[in-house]
């Protein structure tokens, strides 16, 4: 896959630390993600991946360190802050409402209201406008969602993942964080999600991918950042390593390997 905007750093994390009581979950994590790049975030259980994701998505603001978006330091105190800064997170549990249909989920808390001033004041929803625009953003992702008025409970795992990714991208996110997007999926559906990840990265969106699945990382990522005991211990280009090398980095067997891959 060709990438021509690799030089442009969109997300930079500098020396982030995070403590929960006496426990230091993150003890200095630094890495960069370029525009349109897919970066795998690896690490054993308890290495700090989830905490790091929560810091970047505004759920747990870091204690120390900086997060820079396109070179500018940002303060992310809430998920809304992160969203405004252009960071969307596709959570492991997807953060979708099962009883809602696709459009209702895409527009949750960003609903389009009626143009009539009185109805607008009442909070009257413009269902047609939302359906129309959803169709557009889903077309762009060429995804396999059967119908926009289908409730999420009636969709497969892969389709749910597609809805969550579509929601992230349709809001003009420049950075999409995905937490184990294929963990609950079968082989075919995982492949569909991988396709989707490649598609959005080709559109210039940076993807930070958390996964336990080495195959998945090798197939989709350009680069991998490895966390070990709360620190960023390695930063490698995927084409330079194989699965075994990654595994030994995750388990800490091959020590530190911090190469600037700019």
């Amino acid at each position: 896959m060709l990438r021509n905007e690799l030089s442009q750093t969109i997300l930079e994390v500098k020396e982030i630390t995070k403590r929960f009581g006496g426990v230091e979950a993150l003890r200095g994590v630094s890495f960069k993600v370029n525009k349109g790049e897919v970066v795998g975030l690896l690490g054993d259980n308890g290495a700090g991946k989830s905490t790091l994701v929560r810091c970047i998505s505004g759920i747990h603001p870091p204690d120390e360190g900086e997060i820079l978006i396109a070179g500018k330091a940002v303060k992310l105190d809430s998920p809304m802050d992160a969203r405004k800064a252009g960071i969307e997170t596709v959570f492991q549990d997807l953060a979708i409402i099962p009883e809602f249909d696709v459009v209702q989920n895409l527009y949750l808390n960003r609903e389009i209201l009626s143009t009539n001033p009185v109805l607008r004041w009442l909070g009257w929803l413009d269902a047609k406008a939302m359906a129309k625009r959803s169709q557009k953003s889903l077309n762009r992702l060429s995804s396999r969602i059967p119908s926009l008025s289908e409730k999420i409970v009636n969709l497969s795992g892969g389709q749910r993942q597609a809805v969550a990714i579509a929601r992230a991208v349709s809001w003009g996110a420049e950075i999409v964080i995905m937490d184990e997007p294929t963990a609950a999926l079968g082989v075919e559906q995982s492949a569909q999600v991988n396709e989707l990840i490649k598609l959005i990265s080709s559109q210039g969106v940076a993807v930070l991918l958390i996964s336990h699945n080495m195959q998945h990382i090798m197939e989709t990522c350009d680069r991998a950042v490895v966390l070990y005991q709360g620190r960023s211990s390695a930063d490698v280009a995927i084409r330079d390593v194989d699965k075994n090398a990654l595994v030994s980095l995750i388990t800490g067997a091959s020590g530190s390997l911090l190469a600037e891959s700019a």
Partner: protein
Amino acid sequence: MSTTTSSLTRSDWAARLLKPQYFIYYMFMLVLAGFALFLNDTGFFSLANFMNIVRQTAPITIMAVGLSFALAVGHIDLSIGSVVALSAIVGAILLQYVGVPLAIAGALLSGVLVGLINGFLIERLKVSSLLITLGTMGIITGISRQVSGLESIPIIDPLFRSLLGNGDLLGVPVLLWWTLSFALIGYLVMNKLVFGRHLLAVGGNPEAARAMGLRTENIRIKALVMCSLCAAIAGLLYAGRMAGARYTLGEADLLTVIAAVAIGGTSLFGGRVSIIGAVIGSWLMGLINNGLILSGFSTDEQMITRGLILITAVAIGAREAKNA
């Protein structure tokens, strides 16, 4: 959340017609036909009797709409019956000193207050709404009994009694107007307004709602205020129709209202609400009550029936949840 089951093309029309959300309509028709057959010499099947049922059921219907708001966010409100009495007593006492508008405002305020207290306690203490509202139910009932001295407080104001009780507008009883207005408001809020959308989101998946930036605590408190406010309105309608307030008003309504809402297809665990179902459900409860009375059954047997209906409705809902 199960990711394994995916039934995308459930196009079998038989399965469609048997969908649980239609259950209420079949049940309604069945009960109506049954009573019409058995009671064909009693005047059951007459417009006058149906109007009578709708008027008697008006407070139940409005409480059912209100409870739908609480259920939408995943709460239950057991205090609604006690708010009925409180609101009626507050209204009746205020009427002795001030005019109708202020008396109504005071009664509604008492409802809003209870809703706020319920909401704050649930959110602050992070305790289930079931327990908190069970507690406030006891407190409010005690207050109503004490304030009223276990006496009825009569209401003689003709405007109050006609506006909230036995008046007519364009040949239609005001109680039917009230019922339809609140049913319409409830329907629009749940289905057309962003507020209802957020209520259902919070009830459907609170973590997801929070992750999408919704202020879930505020939304849940608002839902409980709406619920309590509707109970307060129901209290005023009782006071208007009965021309007085008594601490026993609404006492036995909790079971009826929960049964009506449950049979109407609203999930008792949040996230799925049918306002139309709640209205039809409350009319079904009224219909059954009326039919049982005309058949010569006692209040005890009516209560047993209500209990059975609630259990049936919950059983259907639970089966559906497993299949989903």
